């Protein structure tokens, strides 16, 4: 009798208690909610057996989204190879510039190592958050167990920069695309010619519609005739990003306008090479220590990447 009474009382208190708890948690500071991320990862793992195949099916059906996967034909692979060699060339050029500055200044700048070994991991996109409006993260099927860490750089199959890992869970991680409005501005370099002998610095911010926009110094004022053209490539050159990510492609210029606030500047709009929100797979560039890379290379009978 008393047991059933206490059970009834408990069931009456359960609902107000749950509501009160939710209200308290709704206002609890984010720094105290780390455990919620772990709990969420369990729930996401429970939903993913259905969500993941449906996402892949959607990306396959959606026009223009995820059409180019990493397992595409040989032509895409060869094009990717060309882009990677171009990237190495640009990074070597950047290293040359640094050494030149170093010699001139005779001072020790931060060591730039474009050949920083990386271990690429291909990960399929599981989908995004249930509430699409509040965040722009992409969940990818590679987590802490594969060595992914916060800040790991994500690209598409070639050298197109996608974004950076924000949070890592045991089985998956969350990538914030560079085109997300919540992303911080990134510094880039406009390549005025194919050899990248002439470049211009720029700072780009996401516009929210899949593009990036920002100021670039107008070289027309100093060199006569603006060499800025639609279709020119913009690469990453930002010290807030890892060395291995420098000179990855941000996108190409699709619009050039005069700056209203700065007469000596132009405003460029840059479109990434692929639809970052519609990526079916991403490549996570996981940095590895030089010692581990050398050991791996010796084991493979080759050289470290």
């Amino acid at each position, binding site marked *: 009798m008393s047991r059933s009474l206490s059970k009834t009382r408990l069931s009456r208190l359960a*609902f107000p208690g749950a*509501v009160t708890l*939710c*209200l*308290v*948690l*709704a*206002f*609890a*500071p*984010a720094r105290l*909610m780390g455990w*919620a*991320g772990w*709990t*969420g990862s369990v*729930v*996401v793992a*429970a*939903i993913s*057996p*259905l*969500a*993941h*195949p*449906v*996402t892949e099916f*959607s*990306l396959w*059906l*959606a026009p223009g989204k*995820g059409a180019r996967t990493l397992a595409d034909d040989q032509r895409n692979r060869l094009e990717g190879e060309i882009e990677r060699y171009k990237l190495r060339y640009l990074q070597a050029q950047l290293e040359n510039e640094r050494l030149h500055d170093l010699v001139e200044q005779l001072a020790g700048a931060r060591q730039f190592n474009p050949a920083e070994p990386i271990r690429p991991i291909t990960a399929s996109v*599981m*989908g*995004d*958050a*249930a*509430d*699409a*409006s*509040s*965040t*722009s*993260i992409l969940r990818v099927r590679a987590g802490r167990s594969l060595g992914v860490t*916060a*800040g790991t750089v994500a690209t598409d199959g070639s050298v197109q920069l996608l974004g*950076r890992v*924000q*949070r890592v869970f045991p089985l998956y991680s*969350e990538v*914030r695309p560079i*085109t*997300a*409005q*919540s992303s*911080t501005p990134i510094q880039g370099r406009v390549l005025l010619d194919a050899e990248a002998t002439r470049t211009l610095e720029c700072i780009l911010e996401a516009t*929210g*519609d*899949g593009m990036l926009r920002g100021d670039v110094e107008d070289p027309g004022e100093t060199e006569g005739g603006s060499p800025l053209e639609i279709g020119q490539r913009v690469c990453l050159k930002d010290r807030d990003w890892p060395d291995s990510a420098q000179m990855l492609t941000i996108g190409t210029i699709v619009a050039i306008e005069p700056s209203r606030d700065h007469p000596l500047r132009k405003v460029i709009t840059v479109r990434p090479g692929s639809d970052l*929100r519609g990526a079916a797979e991403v490549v996570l560039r996981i940095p590895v220590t030089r010692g581990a890379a050398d050991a791996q290379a010796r084991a493979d009978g080759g050289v470290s990447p």
Partner: protein
Amino acid sequence: MRWIVFALVSWVAFGLEIGLRPLLSPGQGNIAPSFVIPVLVYVALWSPARTALWAGLILGVVTDLTSAVDLNPVGAATVIGPHAIGYLLAAQLVVAARGVVIGRRPVTLVVLSVLAALVAGIVVVALFTIRGFYDPIVWRPGSQLGFRTLSALYTGLTAAAMYLVLTPLAGAFQFQSAPNARFARRA
């Protein structure tokens, strides 16, 4: 109501909500229809009030757990509460409105799903906006309200589709007042 059937249907709804977004969401994916809200509305239409409110709270907590909010300058956080409270109030709206609607009709599920999604969206925006005063979250209340209003209207379409799926499942849910029986009493 059989909670195991509710859990299975909710699992499918969450899977579809996340999985079908690349196909159904235009542009950058900020506007997307909900498959979970129609389930909530359907359950709230036919369950006892307390069961409906529990269902709203549970679906809200799961939505919170599978969502994230961007932090400034980097990182993301999972926040429990905003959707839970939002879905709870949405369930209460349906419970309050079900006395004056004909639950069996598809238009009822469509209209109530739009209204429930609107209520939930407004509550979520309000709670995150308050949170934005002391937490470093990336939050733009104006655009968020716009996205959620359009998403709520879009949810009407998924509610119409979900009606076709949920109606045959009425027997499996074992509601105390079965949809058809209730309609028969009204008639």
